[in-house]
């Protein structure tokens, strides 16, 4: 497994949306909900991402009930969860460093005044 994987915003929100089993349109809606309508994943983007995530083994098919025409559902795998956890700690580091450096710089410029 690669050590430093940087997820795209779409990939990140898709993984978050399948912590519980979810279907394609459900993922789009969950992402809209989480981002307060900022990120609307297009169907083409989602379809490609789902196939990539399935290939990588980060998500898997949860159910496919053809008889009742139920939608395909996807759920995160153990490996996908590890990827997501690592990405969250990477993002936390970004945020921590960003805030600290900005505050420090602001403090310095106040002292100069």
């Amino acid at each position, binding site marked *: 497994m690669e050590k430093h994987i940087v997820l*795209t*915003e*779409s990939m990140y929100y898709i993984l978050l949306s399948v912590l519980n089993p979810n279907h*394609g*349109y459900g993922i*789009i809606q969950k992402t809209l909900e989480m981002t307060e309508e900022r*990120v*609307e*994943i*297009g*169907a*083409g*983007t*989602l*379809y*490609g*991402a789902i196939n990539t995530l399935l290939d990588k083994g980060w998500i898997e098919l949860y159910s496919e009930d053809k008889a009742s025409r139920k*939608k*395909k559902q996807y759920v995160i795998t153990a490996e996908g969860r590890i990827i997501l956890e690592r990405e969250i700690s990477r993002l936390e580091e970004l945020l921590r460093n960003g805030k600290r450096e900005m505050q420090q710089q602001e403090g310095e410029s106040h002292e100069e005044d």
Partner: protein
Amino acid sequence: MRKIRFYFDKDKEEKWLNDMCQRGWAMAKFFVGIYTFKPCQPGEYVYRIDMPAEIGKGKLKEKREQYIELVEETGAEHVCDWFWWSIFRKEASKGAFELYTDCESQLALYKRIRKLFIWVGCFEVFLTANNTLLFIKDAGDKVDVALLCIMYLIVMVFIVGIVKTTWKIKKIKQQIIS
């Protein structure tokens, strides 16, 4: 109303369909360059041309069915298919309609399109070379000169298509980096 057009650039084709719709003509059918339009409210729909599946990868029919179902769930409508291509539309009143919402997936789309152009283009080159040889051998007895010219023209069109798509790929890559 019917119109005949030959597009080798899906973005230009998409723009034309949306312009037609602004003028009150909604595209409903496509068959070898013949577009069938039906009257609509000006600007009633937003059209999108897509190439969801990659040439030579997986079962086109099965993948397409799954994909169409997903697109339709987002409130859009499937208009028609043409080989690897699919055309969708969404009522403008239902909100924005974009199929590819990040640079990475747009990049993947244009790479799929280029791959298709390269494969079909190579096939076209093979046919043209074959006919040229026949032409030289039989000195124009069996092979029509006009047909041969058209074939060379098609080869040229594919080359232009590949170059233009490569240019688009380059532009998207620059967006990702910056």
